[in-house]
């Protein structure tokens, strides 16, 4: 079972990477800002950002479950999701910055709400881990970090969904690059194929690492128990 996962992700990822660079660029040269080849990063940047938000949502769900059941298993899951979320958020931020430099001319732009919100996401993760390291008792730690991650999630909802709607000038990110206003997929067949494969592969990669980390965390916890 686990061997299959590895093989499928390896082959799928390789196929996505190779086809992202061998097919025509997702953007026509006439419409692109900067060289059209730059837009190939779209195949990687968007799935990374998607996985980062997936990890964030996952940790909120497990935090709510923890508060309902007080099962420490859910605390481990929320923590693991957050750890991976940091990793993918950093990767998405770096690829996004490169993309921004090549198209909009600057690595960083404070008026770009999506760039700001990924930065805030990292601040949120920083706060979460700072809180965890500041509490010694495991039960208190699990409880309080679950509460704070729910509060953070609601604040993040405001930042990510409400603010850009109110201040439309804040974002240069196209809102119709994947789905247009009428809900239709706007990409051509090849681009669509590569993009959605990449999305699936990144999600699979995330769950594979997630699964491994959970098992490592469980082993560590058991070993600690045996040492006592």
């Amino acid at each position: 079972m686990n061997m299959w996962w590895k093989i499928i992700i390896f082959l799928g990822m390789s196929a996505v990477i190779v086809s992202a660079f061998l097919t025509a660029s997702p953007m026509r040269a006439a419409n692109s800002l900067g060289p059209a080849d730059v837009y190939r990063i779209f195949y990687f940047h968007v799935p990374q950002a998607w996985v980062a938000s997936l990890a964030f949502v996952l940790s909120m769900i497990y935090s709510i479950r923890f508060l309902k059941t007080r099962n420490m298993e859910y605390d481990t899951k929320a923590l693991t999701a957050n750890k991976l979320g940091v990793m993918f958020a950093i990767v998405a931020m770096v690829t996004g910055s490169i993309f921004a430099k090549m198209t909009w001319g600057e690595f960083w732009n404070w008026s770009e709400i999506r760039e700001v919100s990924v930065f805030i996401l990292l601040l949120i993760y920083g706060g979460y881990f700072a809180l965890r390291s500041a509490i010694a008792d495991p039960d208190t730690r699990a409880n309080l970090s679950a509460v704070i991650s729910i509060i953070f999630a609601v604040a993040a909802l405001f930042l990510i969904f409400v603010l850009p709607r109110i201040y439309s000038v804040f974002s240069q990110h196209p809102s119709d690059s994947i789905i247009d206003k009428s809900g239709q997929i706007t990409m051509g067949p090849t681009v669509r194929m590569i993009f959605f494969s990449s999305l699936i592969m990144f999600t699979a990669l995330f769950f594979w690492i997630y699964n491994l980390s959970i098992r490592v965390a469980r082993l560590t916890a058991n070993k600690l128990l045996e040492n006592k």
Partner: protein
Amino acid sequence: MPTRSISWVSKSLAVTRKDIVSEFRTRYAINAIVMFALVTLTVISFSVGLLSPSKEILSALFWVILFFASMSGLAQAFIKEEETGTAMILRLSCEGSIVFFGKMLFNFLLLLTLSILVVPLFIVFLKVVPTDWTLFTGAVLMGLIGLSGATTIIAAIVSKASVQGALFTVLSFPVLLPLLVAVIEITTVSFTGGTYADASAPLQLLVAYDVIMITLSSMLFDFVWRL
């Protein structure tokens, strides 16, 4: 039912009153907050007052002062209870939601006192007068409600941890960011003399934020308060 809700309100007020009395005895939080605000205000007046900054910048600076001043004192509401060991008695004597709203009201009054002191000084030092006082007062009041509503539960969380002061700021900032964006926008409109239509979007955001944050905090408070 009416008697129950009346007693609930009066109990919350009793918690607030207790905090006000103990604040008058020690003056710990109000001294810290007011001095911090004065220091920040002075630094800002010295550094940018001579440059004749635009009204947009001034409204942002106004909220920077209030934000950092409140960070210096609001955490005390629960830290003091834990340090002096009175938290346990408070836990025994009433429900979590009563404590939450009592403390929130206390923090709100603390911030109100602060802004009553800071607003005139800000206007005098930085030579900016709101053209629309109703909008300005509304923005400040709604902003303070949101500030106290969102930070009360964070203060309770932080009181259980070590390195409390730094942690409080770190945890509060991402939560308060939507509030700050909205409130700075409204304050700018009130300084520059825009219409209510200019401020309607951030006002809606602000009201939604206040309502959602206070509801969420009061729902989650028991998980923090009764461990």
